């Protein structure tokens, strides 16, 4: 009998307050903090990655890890030497609903 494979539920987190020029720097700053907090295993299990939608970067992760990703976002206070405070604008299960009523 074939084993049932469940698709992991995702959460998309839209972030505001970025002063860096490139969203790759934002991504690497968040991943660095996340790695310090939860290690490489956490980074892998969380499925943390960035989806580029226009100007604002959107972070996606497995839904169980949402609070931990937001903790990492809150602890980022400097990107490329510029003082930055990242604020979560919206959290959603799909990109479509994330972009609705922005």
């Amino acid at each position, binding site marked *: 009998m074939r084993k049932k494979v469940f698709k992991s539920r995702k959460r998309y987190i839209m972030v505001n307050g970025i002063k860096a020029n490139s969203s790759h720097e934002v991504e690497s700053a968040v991943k660095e903090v996340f790695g310090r907090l939860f290690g490489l295993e956490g980074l892998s299990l969380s499925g943390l990655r960035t989806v580029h939608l226009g100007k604002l970067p959107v972070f996606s992760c497995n839904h169980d890890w*949402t*609070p931990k990703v937001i903790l990492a976002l*809150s602890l980022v206070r400097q990107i490329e030497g510029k003082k930055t*405070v990242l604020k979560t604008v919206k959290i959603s299960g799909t990109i479509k609903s994330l972009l609705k009523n922005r």
Partner: protein
Amino acid sequence: MAKIYVDFYVRKIDEEMVSRLAMFGYSSACVEGMRGRMHSFSGVRLLEKVVVEASSRGDVLEAVRVSGAKALVSVVPATREALMTACRDERVATVMVHGGIAEFDRHVAEIFRNPIEVSVSELVNCFQNEKTWRNVTSFIRKAHLNGRQIIVSSGASSAEEVLPPHQLAHVAAALTDGKAGYYETVSVHPLQILRERSLA
């Protein structure tokens, strides 16, 4: 019914910060060292908060005596003696967690009554050092396991540092190993303190 949010610790206040608080949907904010007990701007009630750094039992008792029973007094305990006094005195509103706080052991757990408070700005400071980060996170986790109320505030000193309530709720969830936003930390728990002091 919509939730009522409180930012329990703002270091200073200006017009921009008030408008930012209103934009994020806060109904009240507790401001350190504000003159006058209560003001209201743009639909946000600003309440006076006293933050005391205490290193002995005498420091805690003196601070609450001077401030009065209805004041919002938060104690930053520098020593274990101050922590033991602050955590059981009913006149203390919250015990503020910081990097150098004493350990949450069974003796502390037995007498702990007051809610604990952690600000994101303090978390950012603690994150610079492994030991202080371990202290803070283990204290919060143990306090949560012992059923203590937790309050998460922004600790903002500029408009940029004011964080939305759902972000604070998720920070609280992450610190207590929760899987979804822990909204009581920005809504129910701070409101209960304000009601006890007739400020809500």
